[in-house]
């Protein structure tokens, strides 16, 4: 038995997606920008994929969806080109984002701060791990060029009030970008409902292939390209089209968004079963209201059990999960999202993320509950946090006497 519960990191490709892609690898390998039939033979499948992606996120025909290599590229593109278009060649100087964005947003913002003199506001989350629209509103100035807020958080699965945030941005006349990597394919996403200028997403998070993502651009708004070169994608993003990738992305999104409510309910049912079982262990807590979370995600904190130690035990049983408190990283801070939501430091080192998919089976759920519980029991038996005999005189520690936090 094995179980993959790290679907917020990446997902397995749906066999139907692979099937759709295969003919476009060795058989119909042409370059779609060529004039000959080898190239143009790919057009019908690409058109279909483009339709599938437009439908999947509810885009209008006058919007652009530009295929990129990944959401990291999409995020970099928006931030760097907004700087170029509205700050370097304009009178804006400010970006509003959040403390818990993906590194492709945070590191790019840092880069713009350090090299281009851009001012960036990093908004905190509330105790539920959510950014509130009124917080966004209060930090927008008349020199703000862009608000960039993720749709759902990768660690906690918490869903942000994007509709309200888009209303605020519309009212203030500021462009809104959303990194929707953890939302698209997991929860209903309809860009025509709201005023989103840009949206990044990535195929491998919804059972599509790796190496293909997209940037949605409302009303084909002008945005200086990140990659200059040939005139692929109307000159918006140069580089030979990733034909099988795009076809795979289209198919994957169509499958994910077809009968989505049923799929979500089935995943949530399994997720809840794991969560309910683990909540029966003492001294554990799960971050965020279930109702406001992506249906596949649990971020659970288990007192006395260090995150990496727990991952080790799960891995021994062939269960893949993840932790934000990377004991191996140079910076031994706890899980940044947990710290951001105000969890105390103890919990920040005991966070475990379990993220399911529609391929997670009931047997796997049982197996995970059993293995997780055994791991907690074993590690708590070793843990100093659960020892009975306390330190003898002079053996106590002050909280965190060596490490800083």
């Amino acid at each position, binding site marked *: 038995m094995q179980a993959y519960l790290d679907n917020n990191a990446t997902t397995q490709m749906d066999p139907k997606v692979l099937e759709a892609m295969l003919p476009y690898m060795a058989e119909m390998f042409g370059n779609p920008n060529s004039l000959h039939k080898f190239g143009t033979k790919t057009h019908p499948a690409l058109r279909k994929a483009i339709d599938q992606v437009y439908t999947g996120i509810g885009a209008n025909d006058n919007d652009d969806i530009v295929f990129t290599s990944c959401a990291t590229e999409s995020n970099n593109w928006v931030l760097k080109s907004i700087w170029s278009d509205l700050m370097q060649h304009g009178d804006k100087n400010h970006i509003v984002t959040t403390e818990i964005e993906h590194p492709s947003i945070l590191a790019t913002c840092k880069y713009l701060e350090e090299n281009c003199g851009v001012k960036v506001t990093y908004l905190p989350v509330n105790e539920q791990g959510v950014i509130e629209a009124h917080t966004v509103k209060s930090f927008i100035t008349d020199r703000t060029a862009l608000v960039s807020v993720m749709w759902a958080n990768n660690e906690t699965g918490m869903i942000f009030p994007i509709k309200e945030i888009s209303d605020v941005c519309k009212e203030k006349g500021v462009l809104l970008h959303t990194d929707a990597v953890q939302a698209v394919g997991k929860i209903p996403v309809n860009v025509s409902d709201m005023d989103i200028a840009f949206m990044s997403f990535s195929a491998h998070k919804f059972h599509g292939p790796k190496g293909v993502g997209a940037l949605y651009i409302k009303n084909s708004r002008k945005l200086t390209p990140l990659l200059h070169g040939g005139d692929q994608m109307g000159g918006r993003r140069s580089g030979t089209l990733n034909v099988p990738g795009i076809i795979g992305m289209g198919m994957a999104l169509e499958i994910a968004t077809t009968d989505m409510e049923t799929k979500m309910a089935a995943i949530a049912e399994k997720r809840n079963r794991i969560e309910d079982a683990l909540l029966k262990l003492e001294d554990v807590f799960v971050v965020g209201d279930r109702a406001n979370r992506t249906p596949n995600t649990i971020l659970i904190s288990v007192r006395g059990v260090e995150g990496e130690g727990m991952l080790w035990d799960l891995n021994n049983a062939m269960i893949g999960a993840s932790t934000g408190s990377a004991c191996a990283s140079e910076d*031994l801070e706890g899980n940044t999202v947990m710290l951001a939501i105000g969890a105390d430091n103890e919990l920040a080192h005991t966070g475990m993320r379990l993220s399911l998919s529609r391929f997670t089976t009931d047997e796997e759920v049982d197996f995970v509950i059993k293995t997780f519980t055994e791991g907690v029991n074993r590690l708590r038996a070793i843990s100093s*946090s*659960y020892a009975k005999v306390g330190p003898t005189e002079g053996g106590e520690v002050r909280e965190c006497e*060596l490490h800083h936090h």
Partner: protein
Amino acid sequence: MAKNDMLGESLWDAYSNKVTTLMNNPQHQGEIFPEEVEKNGTKLIVADFGAESCGDAVRLYWEVDPKDDKIVNSKFKSFGCGTAIASSDVMTELCIGKTVQEAVKITNIDVEFALRDDADTPAVPPQKMHCSVMAYDVIKKAAGMYLGVDEATFETEVIVCECARVSLTTLQEVIKLNDLTTVEQITDYTKAGGFCKSCIKPGGHEEREWYLEDILVDTRKEIDAERMAAAADAGSKGDFETMTLVQKIKAIDAVVDENIRQFLVMDGGDMEVIDVKTSDENIDVYIRYLGACNGCASSSTGTLYAIESSLKEKLSQKIRVLPI
């Protein structure tokens, strides 16, 4: 970065079999209860180090025979990752049978070494080396408690890098001796800063009293000061070529005052030294003519020759005089 670093490492695969085995099945995990100790007429020492809020914590139990200070039994409890648990386990094993005075000599290097499968292969990857440091710290603490002394007295020198156990004095000596200018060089020469990297600069894994970046800056300042003092000493002994720039200019001015200026002034002119540039082959003295000298035909021939020859004679054959 190079070919072998492109993919990043698989952290756990770099662990020794011993680390893996002990994480999966620690041998000395458990507690020693006061009742047992009372029955045996021994002394119980229980010391904590670290805390759950730090990310790792260990509790060390010693049962010590007061007759000969021997640790007759030892156990541990640990909150941490695999390396932390394996390090705690092997540390406990190393303590058993030793006297408290012997045990306090165990370092994190010994703990890491005891976790190796073979003597030449590290038991854990560099960033995990730090986990063994806590084992060393908790031993010192327990020994201090048993002996009734401040644990700080066990450390005779300031340890800057705990992972590699490199002292402040060693670092200062190595920087000076090898004229090191970067932290990377320090790591190459001493291994300090090559593991958990906390000691390189503030903001890492844990807060430190000393950081390699600061030590480098301070030691470089000392090197510069020492060099300047050496140059001043050499200069005051009259060795022109080793003089500092200021000393050189003063020496040149002195020669000009004594041998040349009077003749220039007689003709209604003067000169000043603008700069001195030293290379391996030459010492170039840049001068500017003033008053009547300025534009005088002889200023680029006879006068110039006279200035250069007296400077060469009095100070150094390497001197070239260049009017600007």
